[in-house]
Structure formats: structure tokens, C-alpha cells
């Protein structure tokens, strides 16, 4: 055991990272409130690009959309000249939410408490009773509106996504994600999009357990047996894990190509419960699909550090992100998309395939509870207790041809350790 410790603004959080490295993860990280506070500072307000919203949600001048980066409430706006801005949704007067509606269109942003009014970039324009009433009260002579504003968040719009960062040192989006990740973003999102649906799930676990789960290609066909038995994503399909070719390789793409199905002996030998389900649907319209791309990739699930996932599985395009709601609560958002020029029958196929994922996803619903099982299972653990993840080795490198690996999870922890300064 190493004795690395990290200081936080909330005090000292002693975390000993096992000397085996990122193939071991201390369970304490999932329940420690000091770690949670430190993550808000170093990750959510740190040198990372966070998903703020889709560009189509603020399509017109004056549109705004509120949301969260970590615990921090934010606003994204499009101003009169069409530029996108983001800021903290916290009044410069006494800290009230400036926008209390999730979305809307406005000429200015006005706080309802005492009517401090901001322009769409968050600059204070004016306030009520500045000169007092009948010559009494009012702000001091030294008060200047230009000294006050909503805290700005740096933004960049890339492939239809509004990204934001609190940190001046975050490199531009393309550098941060690297060329391989950006190619997939462009492939999936660089056409006019249409929002087809939106919902969320409250899951009862630390946010990092979901971050792991999304990167866990080992579990995909074992826990999610609907998917496997209907031969949509067997490990024996051609595919793999591509780790980002960015300076900080914290992101990855998991993909599968259409391949001839061959029964994999490993499944039979291991007697996994995947083979239980009859491979015949009474409602085959669920899996009606068409080939949209000529690269042969049927499944592309991309996890961008720390909390964004973009999936294009068959014809189902969804953006999924999550926000911590406390040390053992996470809200997971699902946004389903199509393209603006989809034909009716194409949209209908996307609607049907949306049944596979989300809160009621035939394929993915287990993820709603599995992370909670880890949260509950690791309760009462002692500082030396840790996860063991050596599937596919102990390092972080691309793994073409196999998804029976925990490499992407190790990639997440590599980023996490680095950014948290945990040795």
C-alpha cells in the first residue's frame, strides 16, 4: 500500500491508492463525503469539458436552458447575435436562482427576488430601486453594474453539443477528446438533429459507479441477457475498445461490427444465463433496422470523461449524461435523437429501438439497479477493501477484437486519479 494522501478544501481526505494501480479501486471512493466535495472542485469545476446541453435546445436567439455541472446550477443561452453563452444560475445579489424554469425564451434574465436584471451573456444591466425611493435608500454612489455579473462558464459548441468548463486551462474540445473520439462525434451528430424524447432515472449509487458501468464491456452480455440472446451484441462479433488518442486518454469508444453469428463456446461452457431466452420475438418490429452508415459499425457507444455517453446502437441515437445528487444518488438523463430529415419509417424504427435503452430498456434496465447493488455491497467496507479489475490486463490501451476487458474502466480511473491528484 502506498500512503498517498490528498488535501481538499473540505479538509484532509486520506485515500490510499493500492500500489497495483488502476486495476484496483478503493471502495471508500463511493461513499466518502470528503471525496465527493473534492470531486466537485477538481472534476466538476476542474479542467474538463462537461456536457451542458444540445445546441438544438437553444435553437433561437433568446432561448435558454438550465441544467447542472456537478452540483452547480447553470444556464445556457443564445444571445441576439446567435452566440451561445453559459453561466452559473446564481444571482450576483444574494444567490437566488436567476432562471427557475427549465427552458424558455427571454430578452433578458431577471432575478425574481429583487429584480436584478442581466443580459443573455450574464452581465448585470440594472436593478430595482438603485437610486432608492423618494431620495432615501438606494445603492451607494460607488456601486457599478459592471462590477457584478453571473459567473461565466467557458463554452464550446462541437458536433451539436454545448460543452462547458469552469477552468481556464482546459484545452480546446478537439484536443481534449482527441481525433478518434471527434471523428465518431462528427459521424453521429454533425447533421441537423431532432429531439425525439427525454426522461431521467434516479439511481441510488455514487456517480462513479455509473461511470464505471458505462465503460464495463465485460458485463454487457452477461448482465444484459436480452441483448445477448437476441444476437445483437455478442462478444464474438467483430469489434473492440478504442481508447482516445488524446493527451489524456480518458475517453473511449466501444464498437461492434455486423458479423455472422457463431455460437460462442465460452457461453455454453460458463453456463451463463444468457442463453435462456428464446431468440424469437412475438413483436419483431422492435428490431426493424436499416443500415445508416457504410462503415459496417452497428454499435458505437462512446464514453467521454467524466459523465457523457453517446450511443448509436442499430438506429438508436441517444445522448446520456448524469449528475451527482449526493454521494449515493445520481440522476441519469436520456435524450433520444433522430435527424431532422428522417423519413417517417426511419423515425418509427428509432422509436421502436428506444425500447432497448433508458429507464425501461429491455437491454439496459439492469444498469438502474446493478450499481446500487455495488453501493450497498460495499457498505461497511474498510479502507483496505478494493475492487479487482484485471480483465484484459492491468494497463490502459486499445483492445481491438475483444470487449472481454475492463480496460475502459481502468482508463476512467487513470483520468480520475490524475485529475484528483490521488497519486
Amino acid at each position: 500500500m502506498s500512503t498517498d494522501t490528498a488535501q481538499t478544501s473540505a479538509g484532509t481526505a486520506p485515500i490510499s491508492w493500492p500500489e497495483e494501480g488502476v486495476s484496483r479501486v478503493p471502495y471508500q471512493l463511493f461513499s466518502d463525503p470528503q471525496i465527493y466535495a473534492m470531486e466537485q472542485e477538481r472534476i466538476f469545476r476542474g479542467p474538463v469539458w462537461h456536457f451542458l446541453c444540445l445546441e438544438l435546445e437553444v435553437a433561437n436567439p433568446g432561448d435558454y436552458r438550465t441544467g447542472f455541472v456537478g452540483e452547480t446550477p447553470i444556464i445556457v443561452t443564445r444571445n441576439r447575435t446567435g452566440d451561445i453563452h453559459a453561466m452559473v444560475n446564481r444571482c450576483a445579489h444574494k444567490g437566488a436562482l436567476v432562471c427557475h424554469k427549465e427552458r424558455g425564451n427571454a430578452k433578458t434574465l431577471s432575478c425574481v427576488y429583487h429584480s436584478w436584471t442581466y443580459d443573455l451573456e450574464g452581465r448585470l444591466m440594472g436593478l430595482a430601486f438603485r437610486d432608492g425611493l423618494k431620495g432615501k435608500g438606494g445603492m451607494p454612489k460607488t456601486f457599478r453594474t459592471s462590477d457584478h455579473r453571473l459567473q461565466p462558464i467557458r463554452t464550446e459548441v462541437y458536433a451539436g453539443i454545448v460543452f462547458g468548463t469552469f477552468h481556464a486551462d482546459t484545452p480546446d474540445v478537439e484536443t481534449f477528446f482527441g481525433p478518434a473520439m471527434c471523428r465518431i462525434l462528427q459521424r453521429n451528430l454533425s447533421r441537423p438533429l431532432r429531439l425525439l424524447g427525454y426522461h431521467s432515472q434516479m439511481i441510488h449509487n455514487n456517480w462513479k459507479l455509473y461511470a464505471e458501468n458505462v465503460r464495463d464491456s465485460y458485463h454487457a452480455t452477461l448482465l444484459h441477457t436480452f441483448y445477448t440472446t437476441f444476437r445483437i451484441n455478442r462478444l464474438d462479433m467483430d469489434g473492440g475498445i478504442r481508447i482516445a488518442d488524446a493527451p489524456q486518454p480518458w475517453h473511449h469508444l466501444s464498437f461492434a461490427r455486423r458479423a455472422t453469428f457463431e455460437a460462442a463456446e465460452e457461453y455454453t461452457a460458463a453456463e451463463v444465463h444468457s442463453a435462456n431466452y428464446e431468440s424469437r420475438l412475438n413483436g419483431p418490429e422492435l428490431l426493424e433496422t436499416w443500415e445508416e452508415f457504410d462503415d459496417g459499425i452497428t454499435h458505437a457507444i462512446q464514453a467521454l470523461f467524466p459523465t457523457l455517453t453517446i450511443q448509436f446502437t442499430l438506429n438508436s441515437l441517444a445522448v446520456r449524461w448524469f449528475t451527482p445528487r449526493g454521494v449515493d444518488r445520481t440522476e441519469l438523463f436520456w435524450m433520444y435523437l433522430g435527424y431532422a430529415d428522417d423519413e417517417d419509417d426511419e423515425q418509427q424504427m428509432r422509436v421502436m429501438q428506444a425500447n432497448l435503452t433508458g429507464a425501461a430498456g429491455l437491454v439496459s434496465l439492469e444498469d438502474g439497479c446493478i450499481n446500487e447493488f455495488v453501493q450497498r455491497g460495499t457498505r461497511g467496507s474498510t479502507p483496505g477493501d478494493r475492487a479487482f479489475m484485471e480483465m484484459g490486463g492491468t494497463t490502459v490501451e486499445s483492445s481491438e477484437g475483444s470487449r472481454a476487458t475492463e480496460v475502459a474502466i481502468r482508463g476512467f480511473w487513470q483520468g480520475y486519479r490524475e485529475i484528483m491528484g490521488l497519486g
Partner: protein
Amino acid sequence: MAEQDNPDREELPVDPALRARICDFLLDVAHAIDDDRLEAWAQFFTEQATYRITTRESEEAGMPIGIMACASRGMLEDRIKALRTANIFEPHTYCHLLGPSRLRLVAPDLVAARTNFSVIRTMQNGESILFAAGRYQDEIVTGRERPLLRSRTVVLESRRIDVLLVIPI
């Protein structure tokens, strides 16, 4: 706009016998879920029936994707079979509470019904919560021996689901 929502549509009287039959039917549908008779529940639908769970927000925005969408009874049966044999989740039960139904006869053999509901979910550790509240927008065909749902849209008040949704609402 669904037929039953059209305010200009002419209203035909629903006689008390038909009302009683439909209200019993709606309770039977709810109780089949509460009693874990899901295979029987699917048989309350016509073969071509649609069943959707969506949210007030999606519905008001005219978005086609909600939480679940079945375009035939076959898809409902697949859901049930998946729940029984494929999906993994912690055991839980539902208790449906239905409000009174507003019925409209929209054709001689077709009744549109709107019924508010709430669903209390109980986990194996005894925790009960209000899991869902909303309304059923139903189209019920009455010409046969027993009524059948031709379409059911479950409009949830909330767009946020606690943990997961596997048992139909």
C-alpha cells in the same frame, strides 16, 4: 390529438350498464398487474393494440419517445417474457389506485376513457413509495364478449423514474 381529447367531438351517452362493464374491466386490468398475472394482463389488449408509457412533458412537446412503446400485443408479450426470463431486477410489487373514469362513447363499439392513477411500489425490504402517478388514455372496443384495449397511453406526471421500470404500469 387523440380522439377522446377532441372538444368538438359530439358526445354520445354511455348507458349505466356499459359504464359498469368498462369500470370493472379497467379494475381487472390494473389488478392483473398488482397480482403479477402479467401474461393475462397482455390478453386485455387487441392483437394490433398500441401501449405506450410516456411523460406529460414528452406528450405536451409532441415527442414520439417516452419510456416504453409497444406497437402490438406481441411486443407486450415479449416485454413480459423478458421480465420473466431475461431481465434482472430487485423483486417488487405494485399497488394501483384508480380514480373514477371519464368515459365517452366515440363510436357504437368504441369507448374512450381517461382514468387517473397512482402506483405504489413496494420493495422486498418493505420500502413503499409513490412510484408513479398520471393518467390512462384508453380506447376500449366493446363489441366482443369482453372489452379489450385497442390503445393505452400511460402519461406519467414525472419524467423521472426511480431506479428502473420493468413491470408495466
